[in-house]
């Protein structure tokens, strides 16, 4: 049996790798995706950091009613108020600006008279996309809080009261994220998605080619009259599909790591993902690749033409990517969640990327979930992969 499996595996790989289009899709595309993900991670970090640090210009009405001190506070935090003529609310609602400030008449006088004074902050958090409005709003809120504190201190000092009484709790915030963790900040989002996309794309062509393609070409019957058993034919073909799913995963992750290391320090700020994370992701990725390979084959076996198989497999891509996206956004807190097929392994990769402490057995659970799911899928596939069914199916 092993001889037959080896024979089929070698032939399918030779056949598959001679098709330039499939080779590009299986090997080149995953490598490019890995490199792109590596480049995007520090770029996204840099974009967010620069937005947090760059000056903010906010349209405002009634600037003339602001006191000198508040204007100085804004300036200190690099906020420039820009006079706005016209309907400020309409401007913010339309999304043209992320935030606007309305200063009511007599604002400064009320502050001076120690009366409650209000400001109206208009925001539109959808403005500017994911790197948009929230930065302006956060900065403005910070400025107002600082100003409130400043004025309060002045007022109590005038009355001979210790200003420390105004601050019962003093919060000192320290960001202890290591450069590696910063490197993994976006990698935690990107690596699970990368693993899912590459696993599906890598084995897609060959999975269809060795099943539906064999039927469409009219070569299936010739293969079935050989002494190879149904199981040997199935496992030989699966070995080829798994190879073409696993190799792209390794390539994508190595590409990711290599590209991260080749980027200049000015871009990465020393935040490079450790090689251990890459090895961990590959360790988790290979059993997942096996599961996805079996599913791809199981779907393709049921169809009798390349085109029909492509349509059927399209739905399967969603089936893989939904739990992957879930893992990228919501990380599990319970160890048992790592046993959920696809989601569990993807969550392990996400946690590895940020250097988080993994719950006990998380890696093992991630691997077991894929192997169990692959075993169940194999039992189903083997039932479908029977000579008579294959000849007359669909």
């Amino acid at each position, binding site marked *: 049996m092993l001889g037959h499996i080896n024979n089929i595996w070698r032939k399918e790989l030779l056949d598959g790798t001679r098709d330039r289009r499939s080779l590009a899709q299986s090997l080149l595309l995953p490598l490019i995706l890995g490199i792109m993900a590596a480049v995007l991670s520090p770029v996204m970090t840099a974009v967010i950091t620069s937005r947090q640090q760059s000056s903010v210009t906010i349209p405002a009405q009634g600037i003339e009613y602001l006191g000198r001190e508040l204007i100085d506070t804004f300036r200190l935090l690099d906020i420039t108020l820009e006079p706005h003529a016209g309907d400020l609310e309409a401007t913010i609602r339309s999304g043209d600006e992320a935030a606007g400030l309305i200063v009511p008449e007599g604002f400064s006088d009320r502050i001076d008279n120690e009366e409650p004074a209000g400001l109206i902050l208009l925001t539109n958090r959808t403005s500017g996309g994911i790197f948009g409005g929230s930065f302006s709003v956060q900065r403005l809120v910070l400025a107002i809080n600082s100003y409130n504190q400043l004025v309060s201190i002045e007022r109590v000092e005038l009355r001979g009261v210790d200003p420390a009484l105004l601050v019962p709790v003093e919060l000192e915030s320290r960001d202890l994220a290591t450069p590696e963790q910063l490197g993994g900040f976006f990698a935690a989002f990107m690596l699970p998605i990368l693993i899912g996309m590459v696993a599906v794309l890598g084995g897609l062509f060959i999975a269809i080619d060795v099943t539906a393609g064999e039927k469409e070409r009219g070569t299936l*019957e010739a293969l079935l009259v050989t002494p190879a058993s149904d199981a040997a034919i199935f496992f030989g073909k699966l070995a080829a599909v798994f190879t073409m799913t696993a190799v792209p995963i390794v390539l994508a992750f190595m590409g990711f790591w290599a590209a991260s290391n080749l980027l200049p320090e000015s871009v990465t700020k020393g935040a490079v993902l450790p090689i251990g994370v890459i090895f961990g992701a590959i360790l988790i990725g290979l059993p997942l690749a096996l599961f996805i390979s079996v599913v791809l084959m199981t779907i393709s076996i049921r169809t009798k033409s390349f085109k029909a198989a492509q349509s059927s497999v399209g739905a399967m891509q969603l089936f893989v990517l939904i739990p992957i996206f879930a893992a990228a956004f919501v990380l599990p807190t319970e160890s048992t969640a790592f046993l959920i097929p696809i989601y569990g392994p993807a969550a392990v990769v996400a946690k590895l990327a940020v250097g988080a402490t993994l719950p006990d057995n998380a890696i093992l659970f991630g691997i077991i979930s894929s192997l169990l799911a692959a075993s169940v899928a194999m039992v189903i596939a083997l039932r479908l992969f029977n000579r008579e069914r294959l000849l007359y199916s669909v």
Partner: protein
Amino acid sequence: MIEIKDLKKHYGEDGEIKAVDGVSFDCPDGQITGLLGPNGAGKTTTLRMIAALIKPMGGTVIVDGHDVTTDAQMVRSLLGVQSDMLGVYPRLTPREQFRYYGRFYGLKGEALESRVQAVIEELKMEEIADRRAEGFSRGQRQKIVLGRALVHDPHNIIMDEPTTGLDVMAVRDTRQTIRDFRDQDRCVLFSTHYMDEAERLCDNIAIIVKGKIVAFGTPSDLIARAQTVNLEDAFVALAGREGLLRSEYSQRGRED
């Protein structure tokens, strides 16, 4: 030698479609046995059961003493089967395809290479042996299909409509190859619906209609029994016009 005994294959929920219904005949060594019948008569289903591709619902096939129902893998290793589909792997050369199929029968190393070379020479494929099969003509693809059935030098050869769609020269070559098999004392079973081909090549002919063997004998026996002057007329007389029509149309939708 291939012995077919009371072979049955029925389809449908209640088995109402009797694709093969109690077929029995022998294919001795050193002889060409033809399986003759209209489309839908049960030729391909019979050949597929002999080749251990599908399981019989009743009866059995014995190939060189091995029962297809209990030892399918051994039976497959004793047969060389050329199907009616001319599918080849377009990205592989004929030599690579022969190697692939040879390995299934335990050939390897020098033995495999020399056998592959022998098939290439036997089928006069030297010029195309190392070219990828993409764009090959029907005749060239037919040679690959035949070559992969012969690569393990089988004693028993099954061919399903081997000359259908070929040009005149390719048909002549294929017919000569079939005669060569007989001269090499091999057992040859082939299906066809060309009467002249069956008359010229076959030592024995089994006429199958609606899944049953309606006549078996040498071409001259069949002609004499039907009291006709040629095999085509004998075939029509023995199969019965009504039977031929029912075979053609009643089983439409399922393969031969």
